[in-house]
């Protein structure tokens, strides 16, 4: 069940059809790859079985922190069926997704940094032989003290985890102040303060990482990988293997979910490339599920203290945050994470003054990185809980408190990011109405409650990971006289549907039936560069590039038909498989004929379009670019829960999810992102955490022990799409893939409070934590909804 509420005035954004009805955009069209997916025909990386394929395996460290004294691979290399063995010394170039923090090697050289760190790799006839060979590799480790907590890491800089770190175990520190924070807090009539802990979580995409390397006789190295960043992988393969980049081809087959877990290079990609170069045969490595947990790069655990000041009418005066971030062994995207932990809080509320002080620390655990809602899900949890406390203190309905503090459209945040369209008020109104909020809040019986939370997220980042002035995304078109159009783009479809989105846009612009569009993506030999599936950037950026690519083609087709019909070009309409001149029924030809007329007149048809971000949309302070986006999405959720005060069990009955995606290019796909996001947030709220034992061993690296929500746990989800029409988004569109995760967690926390009167500050909300909080409330002699 879905309501779509356009909010005016709908700035249509780039793309034709302004004012006119769309033929394709906004409809519940099939995905271009849907029929292949439901028949098992989609090819994922592990489905590739080239002739002469060898299978690789990686030997991993059993220690959280140890020096490698020596490695002896001779017995493994001599094992029958083994074709090559490599160690860290074969790939001695440090890499890292962020060019300023290249602090890891494909395989450890001197030191292992966590249990599961790769040390050596083998290529053999089959997986069993490769595994047997791993057992023959002899490594002499000198075990070092493992640094497993943030406190320990800071207290013992001499036990340095990552030797690339400039200072002890500090990975990154950011402190930024905007406005008069101390004055704002001193002048506040109410200040709430508390400390929250987000335990971190992992992506757990159902497809494990997989890569196939294949050095051809022509000297071209092809790497197929389940990556979500083929372009960055391409660059890093070239650097680390010391091969010219034009000798390498990266292809991303269908990817079975990413969520940020495949958005940087991993050891297996370097290993298959190197092993193929050594053997001259294709080599495949498929991670076991345990290895996926070791690869991690998931959500950072964060310990967050907030002080939020306000006037008695609920208007915010100042916000101050101190955040400690557990980064694991490497930097990964950590520089960005540290900024994001503070920078993305500037909306959807107007903060008159704001300060954050965030420190990311190295520990001997699998590295944390970007997970859906990178760096901002944790602070959003804390801050939206703080707002709920504030509402209680000033006796305001929490939705009303949020409404009063709304940032608004066409403005700047306290940290100077430009904000264009903003449908946050409509999101609040949507969930308030759909959930029956007014009849439920504080009025449901003890044990039942509702909670609200809001959020915002970026539609891509304004700056690429490595500094350059080139477009962030590009699309090329091949327009065929058969009436078919082939779209070439570097984008990475990881299930979110960007291949389909490009097809919808080109079909809309050129009037071609969807079945006549072919989409070729994520192949560095065939497709123009797109930076990848991260930061919710593709619809906005590649969408605009696709519209730009169509413009010239469309003009030529219109010109050709205008001449044939003796009408002005502007009167030639391309839609639904036909070129027509509305008003003259005889002026209508199948689109293939129009393509032919244009090809006859102008020569072979094709188009190129690209998109780059605006660069003047942020402040000039150091770090001002991190968090700057061409447009921001907005979300609000209401969660309804039942809490059993005997068992401590929390059951989430339903989450109403409202999201301002600018414009839904396909509402079915947008809902899919909203539902998937909300469900992922729900899992983090109630179940997910990554405990390690005192030796740094993950306590349950399996899909059984790591508690993913099943069909039986997941609440009912109701999506409410809000369309604010962004003037720079394609047809007004903004992101939908990450924003709607954020409010789930605080909405559930706030609903638990409404249900039983306790504020839970540590994730996940497991029954013992709920019971302990209830006990504390009882001990304090406080009652809730008439219950002691």
């Amino acid at each position, binding site marked *: 069940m879905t309501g779509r509420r356009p909010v005016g005035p709908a700035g249509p954004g780039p793309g034709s059809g302004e004012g006119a009805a769309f033929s394709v955009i906004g409809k519940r069209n099939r995905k271009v790859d849907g029929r292949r*997916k*439901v028949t098992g*025909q989609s090819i*994922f990386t592990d489905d590739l079985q080239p002739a002469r394929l060898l299978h690789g395996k990686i030997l991993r460290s059993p220690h959280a922190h140890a020096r490698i004294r020596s490695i002896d691979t001779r017995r493994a290399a001599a094992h029958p069926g083994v074709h090559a063995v490599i160690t860290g010394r074969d790939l001695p170039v440090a890499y890292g997704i962020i060019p300023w923090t290249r602090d890891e090697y494909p395989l450890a050289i001197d030191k292992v940094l966590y249990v599961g760190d790769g040390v050596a790799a083998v290529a053999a006839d089959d997986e069993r032989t490769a595994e047997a060979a791993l057992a023959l590799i002899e490594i002499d480790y000198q075990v070092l003290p493992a640094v497993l907590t943030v406190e320990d890491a800071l207290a013992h800089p001499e036990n340095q985890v990552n030797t690339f770190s400039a200072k002890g175990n500090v990975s990154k520190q950011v402190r930024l102040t905007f406005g008069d924070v101390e004055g704002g807090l001193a002048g506040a009539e109410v200040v709430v303060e508390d400390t929250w802990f987000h335990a971190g979580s992992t992506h757990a995409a159902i497809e494990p990482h997989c890569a196939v390397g294949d050095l051809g006789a022509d000297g071209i190295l092809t790497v197929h990988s389940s990556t979500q960043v083929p372009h960055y992988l391409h660059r890093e393969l070239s650097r680390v293997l010391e091969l010219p980049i034009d000798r390498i081809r990266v292809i991303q087959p*269908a990817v079975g*979910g990413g969520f940020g877990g495949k958005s940087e290079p991993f050891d297996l990609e370097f290993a298959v490339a190197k092993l193929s170069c050594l053997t001259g045969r294709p080599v495949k490595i498929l991670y076991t*599920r345990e290895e996926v947990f070791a690869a991690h790069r998931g959500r950072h655990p964060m310990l967050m203290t907030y002080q939020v000041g306000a006037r008695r009418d609920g208007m915010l005066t100042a916000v101050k945050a101190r955040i400690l971030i557990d980064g694991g062994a490497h930097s990964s995207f950590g520089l960005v994470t540290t900024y994001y932990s503070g920078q993305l809080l500037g909306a959807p509320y107007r903060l008159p003054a704001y300060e954050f002080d965030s420190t990311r620390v190295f520990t001997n655990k699998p590295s944390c990185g970007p997970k859906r809602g990178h760096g901002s899900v944790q602070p959003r949890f804390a801050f939206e809980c703080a707002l709920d406390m504030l509402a209680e203190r000033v006796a305001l309905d929490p939705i009303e408190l949020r409404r009063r503090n709304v940032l608004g459209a066409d403005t700047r945040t306290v940290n100077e990011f430009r904000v264009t369209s903003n449908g946050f008020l409509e999101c609040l109104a949507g969930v308030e109405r759909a959930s029956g909020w007014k009849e439920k809040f504080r009025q449901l019986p003890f044990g039942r409650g509702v909670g609200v939370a809001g959020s915002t997220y970026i539609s891509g980042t304004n700056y690429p990971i490595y500094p350059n002035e080139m477009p962030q995304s590009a699309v090329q078109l091949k327009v065929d006289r058969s009436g078919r159009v082939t779209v070439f783009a570097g984008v990475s479809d990881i299930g979110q549907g960007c291949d389909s989105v490009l097809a919808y846009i080109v079909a809309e612009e050129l009037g071609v039936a969807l079945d006549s569009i072919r989409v070729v993506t994520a192949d560095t030999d065939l497709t123009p560069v797109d930076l990848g599936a991260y930061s919710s950037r593709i619809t906005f950026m590649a969408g605009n590039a696709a519209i730009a690519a169509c413009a010239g083609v469309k003009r030529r087709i219109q010109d050709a038909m205008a001449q044939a019909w003796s009408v002005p070009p502007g009167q030639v309409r391309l839609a639904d498989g036909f070129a027509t001149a509305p008003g003259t029924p005889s002026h209508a030809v199948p689109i293939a004929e129009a393509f032919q007329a244009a090809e006859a007149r102008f020569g072979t048809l094709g188009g190129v379009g690209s998109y780059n971000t605006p660069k003047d949309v942020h402040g000039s302070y150091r770090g001002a670019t991190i968090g700057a986006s061409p447009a921001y999405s907005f979300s609000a959720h209401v969660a309804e829960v039942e809490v059993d005060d005997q068992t401590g069990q929390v059951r989430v009955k339903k989450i109403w999810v409202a999201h301002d995606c600018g414009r839904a290019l396909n509402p079915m796909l947008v809902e*899919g992102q909203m539902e998937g996001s909300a469900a*992922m947030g729900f899992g983090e709220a109630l179940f997910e955490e990554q405990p390690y034992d005192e030796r740094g061993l993950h306590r349950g690296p399996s899909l059984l022990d790591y508690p993913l929500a099943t069909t039986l746990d997941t609440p009912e989800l109701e999506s409410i799409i809000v369309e604010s029409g962004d003037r720079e988004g394609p047809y007004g569109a903004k992101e939908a893939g990450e924003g709607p995760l954020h409010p789930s967690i605080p909405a559930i926390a706030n609903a638990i409070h409404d249900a039983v009167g306790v504020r839970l500050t540590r994730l996940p909300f497991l029954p013992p934590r709920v019971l302990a909080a209830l006990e504390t409330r009882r001990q304090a002699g406080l009652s809730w909804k008439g219950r002691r």
Partner: protein
Amino acid sequence: MKESVRFVVNGDPVEVLVEPGATLLECLRQDLGLTGSKQGCDKGDCGACTVLLDGRAVLACLVLARSVEGRRVTTVEGLAEAGRLHPLQEAFDTQGAAQCGFCTPGMLMSACALIEENDQPSRQDVREALSGNLCRCTGYTKILDAVVKAAGEVHQARAAPKGGGKP
């Protein structure tokens, strides 16, 4: 030593040489090239490898290949008949139930086993039947929608008088 095993897969009799420890999933994917069934964990935790064994949903990663001698295996490749999508496949496609599509083959096979037994399942019945199939993308909402819709169509087709109506 490898040994020979004969069984019927998607209606076709096959004979395969397998290692004693090889799983049915390995045999399907590597020996028979039926890569539709997916390996998400290889431990029985995720459901991506679900296939039908004599009509019952099983996890192919937990079944030894040699144990299917003489039995009937149906994989996602065998769901469509004569190029026509099964109502479940059609519903998954049109309802947006497949995002990345990695869980989809397993989901479809579990749903197929359910519908064979009960073509009027409640939403809760569907939740229970699919509770062993993990999906990380969808939040399950659209998967449940699709199964309920497809079940309705299968039910109607079965109830329709012979020769009349279309599913």
